[in-house]
Structure formats: C-alpha cells, structure tokens
C-alpha cells in the first residue's frame, strides 16, 4: 500500500506492506532511528512518538494507520537547538544507557507543555507509562519538574 505521512514537518510517501509496524516504518523505511523498539508489546514505551500531537506507541500501530496523519519523533523534538526537557535530562542525569530516553521525551513533552507546576506525584504518574532499567527515575522526576517550570505557562 502507498501511504503519505508528515514526519517532523516533512512529507514522505512510501510503499509499505500492510503488516509493517509504524515503529519499523519509522526506523527502517524513513531511517529515523532515534525512535527505539524495546518490547514490541506496548509496555515499555521506548517507541513512543507523537501522532497528531498525542503520544502513541509506534509498536502497537501499523504504518498504514498513520497514513495522511502527522508524526513527530525525537529528531523533531527540539525546534531550535535543544528542548528544555533535553537540557533538563542532561543536567539532572536522567539518562544512562539512553535506549528508553526518546520514548520518555516524546511522552513527556505534552505534559511539561500543559502542566506548569506539576506535583511530584503527578510527575511520577506521567513517567509511569514508560520503563527505564538504568536510572531509578529520580533524575527524570527532577528533570520534568525543571522543564515544566521553565516552560511554565509558555
């Protein structure tokens, strides 16, 4: 099947097998390998991208389902240089191996945009849809608080 998608503001047209997962389409067909695949059963969240602005697990969708829609991946997160979340993740040591990081960032971006002063419990809830095996999450909790504050009401 032929599909057209907009990814990070660019339009792509590709021929895909109907069975192709959106995650494989992004990584293999579009060669945007910043999106990672951790479990292929929708639990770990490493493959999270934004579909029309909403975080989705790209391993639980078929590429053809994204036809005609707009995607944003880690490669399109920073509009100029560095997103406040990326900076905060660095400063708070919120990543170690980094395999889960893109999924966390794409999940959290709407949260920090919409919640200027989240409580720690709200942050932890927002993080709880993704898995990280390295950090123990503390740096991430701090980073999300910092980024939300920075973006506060903006």
């Amino acid at each position, binding site marked *: 099947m032929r599909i057209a998608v907009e990814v990070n503001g660019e339009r792509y047209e590709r021929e895909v*097998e109907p*069975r*192709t997962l959106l995650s494989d389409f992004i*990584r*293999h067909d579009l*060669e*945007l*390998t*910043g*999106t*990672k*695949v*951790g*479990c*292929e*059963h929708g*639990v*770990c969240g*490493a493959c999270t991208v934004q579909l029309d602005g909403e975080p989705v697990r790209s391993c639980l969708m078929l590429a053809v389902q994204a036809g005609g829609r707009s995607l944003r*991946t*880690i*490669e399109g*997160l*920073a509009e100029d240089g*560095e997103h406040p979340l*990326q900076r905060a*993740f*660095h*400063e708070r*040591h919120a*990543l*170690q*191996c*980094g*395999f*889960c*990081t*893109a999924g966390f*960032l794409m999940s959290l971006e709407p949260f920090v945009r919409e919640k200027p002063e989240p409580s720690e419990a709200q*942050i*932890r*809830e927002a*993080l*709880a*849809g*993704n*898995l*990280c*095996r*390295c*950090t*123990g*999450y*503390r*740096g*991430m*909790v701090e980073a999300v608080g910092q980024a939300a504050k920075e973006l506060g009401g903006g």
Partner: protein
Amino acid sequence: MTSEVGSPAGGRLVGRPLPRREDARVLGGHSEFLDDLHPAGLAHLAFVRSPYAHARVLSVTPPRGAPGLLAVLTARELEGRTRPLPIQSPEGSEVADEPHPLLAAGEVRYVGQPVAAVVAESRALAEDAAELVGVEYEELDPVADPHASDLELLRWRRTAGDVEGAFRSAARVAGGRYAMPRLVAAPMEARGALAYHDPAADLLTVWCSAQDTHRPLRHLGHVLGRPAEQLRVVVPDVGGAFGSKGSLAPEAAVAAIAAIDVGRPVKWAEDRAENFVAAYQGRGMEAEVELALAADGRMLAVRARILADLGAYLLPATAMPPHTAAMLMAGCYTIPAADVRVSGVRTNKVPTGPYRGAGRPEAAYFLERAVDDAARALALDPVELRRRNLIREFPHRSPLGWTYDSGDYRRCLDLALDLAGPRRAHSDEGLVGRGVAMYVERAGGSFEAARATLEPDGRVIVRSSTSPHGQGHDMTFAQIAAERLHVDPGDVVLEFGDSALVPGGTGTFASRSVAMGGSAVARAVDELGKQCVQTAARLLDAPEDEITWGEEGLAAGDGRTLALPDVAAAGPLEATARFESDLVFGSGAYAAEVEIERATGRLTVRRLTAVDDAGTIVNPLLAEGQVLGGAVQGLGECLAEEATYDDQAQPTSASFADYSLLTAAEIPPIAAEFVESPSPLNPLGAKGIGEAGAIGTPAAVANAVSDALGGRHVDPPFTEEKLWRAIGE
C-alpha cells in the same frame, strides 16, 4: 595511597558531580545501537527455537524455498566448523563439561534454545521462513525444580578454621533457609550482533551489543577457531546490560557463521520475546545458613550450603555467581571459621549467569537474613549484634580466602542509621518493619589497559579497554585524565569499543571500570604527561624539574611557555599502560522501612537508605546514579520480579506484562550517601559502585519484612499473597 592524585593547575576534577558530555548525542536521537546499524546489503537472521523444555530432536527440515530466503543453518551446517562456547571454572571448583551448543544437536534442553537459524532479506521474511522450518521432536521429561535434579554441573567446597568445634561450643546456633528467585536482567535494548566477513582480508567483523570488546573477541576466537588478528569486535551504543551481555550469545556466533556463508552482512537483533526465554538469567540460588554464636553474640563460625539452579548448560560465566556468593559468606564480620558448599544443578531452563551483583546480592541476602534471625534467637538488637562482629582492621583476610583491602564498616552503619531516622510503630492498618543489612563485595581484579596519545592539535586521545553501556565512562575517564594532565576535559577524547583501536582488557563487569579501567587511564596519562615534560624540557632547553603545567601548556622556570601542539610537533607522544591488581572490596550499609497492609498483605517500602563505600568517588552524580539504578533493581526484585516456570519448565513470565519492572510511580524516597575509604590497591583509591544498590537493597528490605512479621521469614518477591498468608500464620 591517593598521593599520586596531584593538585593540578586546572583544579581538581575528580570528585566533581559533572553532568555527562555523552548525553547530547543520545538526547538528540543520534545514538547508534546495534539495531540502528544498516550497512548496504544487510541480511537478517531469525531463530527457530525449541517450544519444549526437554526433547529429542529427530529431524530438522529447512523449507524448499521461501520469499527472500538466503540460507538455513542447523547443527549439521556448523559441524566441524565450530566449538561450543568455553566454560569458565572458578577457583577450586569442579565443573561439568556441559557447554552450550550454538544450535541444538540431537536434544533440546530448555524452551527457547536455538535449533536452527534462518537468513533472509528482511527480519520479517526471516521470521516467516523460520516458521516453515520443520522440526520433529520427541518430548522427554523436563526438570523444573532444582531440588528434583540429579545432575550436578558445579561443585565447590571450602572449609577453614575449627568449624565443628565452634558449633559444639556455641551458646546458640541460628539461621535458616533463604532463597532468591531467578531474575531477568531485562536491559531495555535486547541482545544482538551484526557480522560481516571480508573475504579478501579474511577479516570477520562483529558489531555486538556487548559489555566490552575483548570477551566477545575471545569467545568468537574459541568458537570459530579464528586467530585474534582475523577478528574485530565493535561495540556500538549499548542499551543496558547488567551482566547479561558479558558472555558472547550463542546466537551472535551463529550470525558470524551466517555472514561468512552468505557473503553479506548479517544481523541478529533479538526481540523482547526471545530475550525473556533465551538470554541468560540471574540469581536462582538458595542457601541453608547456620551461624554458631557465643552467648555474647560473637560469631564463631558460619556454615552454608548453596543450591544453584544453573539451568540446562554451562555458559562461559554460569559458574561464577554461585562461587562469588560462597566466597562472601563471611560478610563484614570477623568470623574465624567457615564451611561453605555449592551445588549447582541442571534444570531444563535457560542457563543462569551474571546479573547485576552476580552472587553478591545472594550472599548479602543469605548472611544478613541469618544475622537477623540470630539476633532474634539471642534476643539482641540486630544492629548491636552486627556491631559486635564488624571487621575493624584492614587488610582483613576472610576465612574463605579473600583479602578485604579497605573499609570503614562501622561508619557506614552509623551513617545509614542516622539517615534512616527513628523507628515507627505498627498502626491499625499496617505492620511496620525496619531492616538493616551490611554488605561487602568483590570488585576489580585482573587487568585493564589504556593508551594515551598526544595529537598534533594538542588534544589527548585516550583509548580504553573497558567500554560503557550507560555508566558514563566518557565523562568519568575524562575527569581522571584531564586532572592528571592538567588540561581541560574538553581536550581529552575517549575512545572505546573497537578491538582494532583499543588495547586488550578483561571487560566491563563486576563494578570494575573505575578501579581497573580508570587506573589504567591514570597510568597511561601519567606516563604521557612525563613524556610531555621531557619533550618540553628538551625544546625549552630547561631542566625537567623546572617544567610546570599551566593554562598555556608547559612552562619553564623563566616563564617561557610551550603549547601542547608544539610539544606534539616534536615527535609522536604516546603511552600505553596495563594496570593489574588484586580484588578490591566495596562495602556498605542499607536500611529499609516497610509497611505491610494487614488486610491485603500489600507491601510498601516507605524509605530506603543506601550508604556505600566505593573508595574514592570520581563523579558523585554518576556514582549516585549507579546506586539509585541498582537500588531500584533491588526493589523490583523485592516487589515484583521473578522468572517463573510451570512444572513442565515452560516459562510463565515471558513478557513485560508478566514480568513487571518498577515504574517511577512505585519508587520510595531513597537516601544515598557515600563513605570514601580509599583502596590502597590502585592509584585512584577506587573500589566499585555499579552493583552496590542491587546488593544492599534486597537484604535490607527482606530484614524489614521479617521484622514487620515478627520474625517470620518470607523470600522475595514479597507478593501480597505471600505476605497475607504470613500475617495469618
């Protein structure tokens, strides 16, 4: 012996909590993990795996053809060309000759064991074709329960001191039977390898999601019978390992053969389902422990029998964790006599191997639970019992034969108690418990190497034999090198993970990177620094002892300076160092406060305190990250994690839906502090921190759970059902 760490012009870098310079690439989505590599002409590998825990393989029939099919490999195709993976044998042990075959020949012994490999144009087509491979099995009886196994794969025993006399004269004998379930390391990136054979040079290059380059290199050399010069191992970004990517995966060796056969690059990128059934698991040990105690609480002797569920075969490091557990069974205490035995038995499960701690968490759990049970038997406060027996002088030779180099166990304990705060009482809704656990761990040992080169532009390139998979070697080693060379860390470039570029080493495991790899870096840059001074002295025509380092480079006594590029122009300056040392022993004290809901048995860890002595800390931010990450893995082990099998040895926890990792919403407050008693065995004074959190946490939480239950013992994971039943007893 930290005197070698000087006080450079640029100020101290060791000890500063600097964020990692390696982050930017990852945060921008530009990391390159194994499955991100797509060389031209790439073919893909998928495996046919055994659905049975034990069966005879009567026949394997490749499909006549399938879309995109390039090759099918079975044991027959490997015959005469490969050897099984080597087996490491711990000191003093007897190990069976039961290596893991690359592909099953005649028999399968666990669910998930590779039987055949299919190479095709894409991963999807390889999986399609794998489904067309016909395998005829004849089912055999599997062994799921290690107690029912009649085959020992590993035997070890050590006795020291007058154990029988101690038990005869003891005022009390206390202890129990304690078990840690099998766990899955579950790095977020599963395993994988990409191989390419260049026929002209007869060079086989294997990109491997591995902890280091030189273990896969050695294992590939052994398996394929290839000399090291015809092998190159490249380690790209690695998405976590926790011990599970130390030994070469049998599948990676098959990928290498496939690449030679099809004459194209071949990639095996393991998926999560495969990782759950076929990647080696951790723990799976239990122990009967007895302590002989004097009336005043002095520990006179320890006796322990460790039973390890090793699984179906011996992988290279399968025998190591039980041995490490056994060797640490005297813990932090001045126990004069010990009798420790290990029996590692075969079951029809995937083999075990090192997983974060690799025997250390087991030892801490076995012994520290026994110490709490002993305190109860003696009607002594468990902290007081520990105090009366703590080792206070170093070096200390344990009766089991390891020499603890350094430590300050009492200070660790005091600090942990301070941070843990006051005890709380039970409430109407919940049973509250407080647990304390000490640990000592082996780290370092063997050797690592580094090569430091002064580049024409004045930068220093340091090539290190240990390589990172998330820890932060780049920043940490840059701090070590830049401080010693008196240069900006930005002028130090670290290179890792390519056997063609880096000097050979032992590997990244056992919390050894800073103590061993970091020390090798320190020695190499010290030597390079010396060469720089000699060269500058010659160029400036000044005595060497007058040359000093400054912001401009090197300066003579009269103020004339020479920038590093000028020094570099005078000749190639390069130094290689190999650093070797005995084991170093990190230690720590952990405290946990738990509450068990009376009505449901639900466990809440209210607070965890971690005090670790890893010697000198190079980067406290990253070291704390290691402690927190390890502690959360330890908490996962307490709250949820267990690799389960049914009575036919079928895995029943083979997805993240059934084997749940903790999320951010389930983590209690964790207070983490360091005590720094430097090791005398290396120039940095460093010990190990990578595994600390995973070692101390389960023992402390288990003691807290037992305390809440009035002394009853329950093994992890502390599920609601287990705890609810224990409350009812």
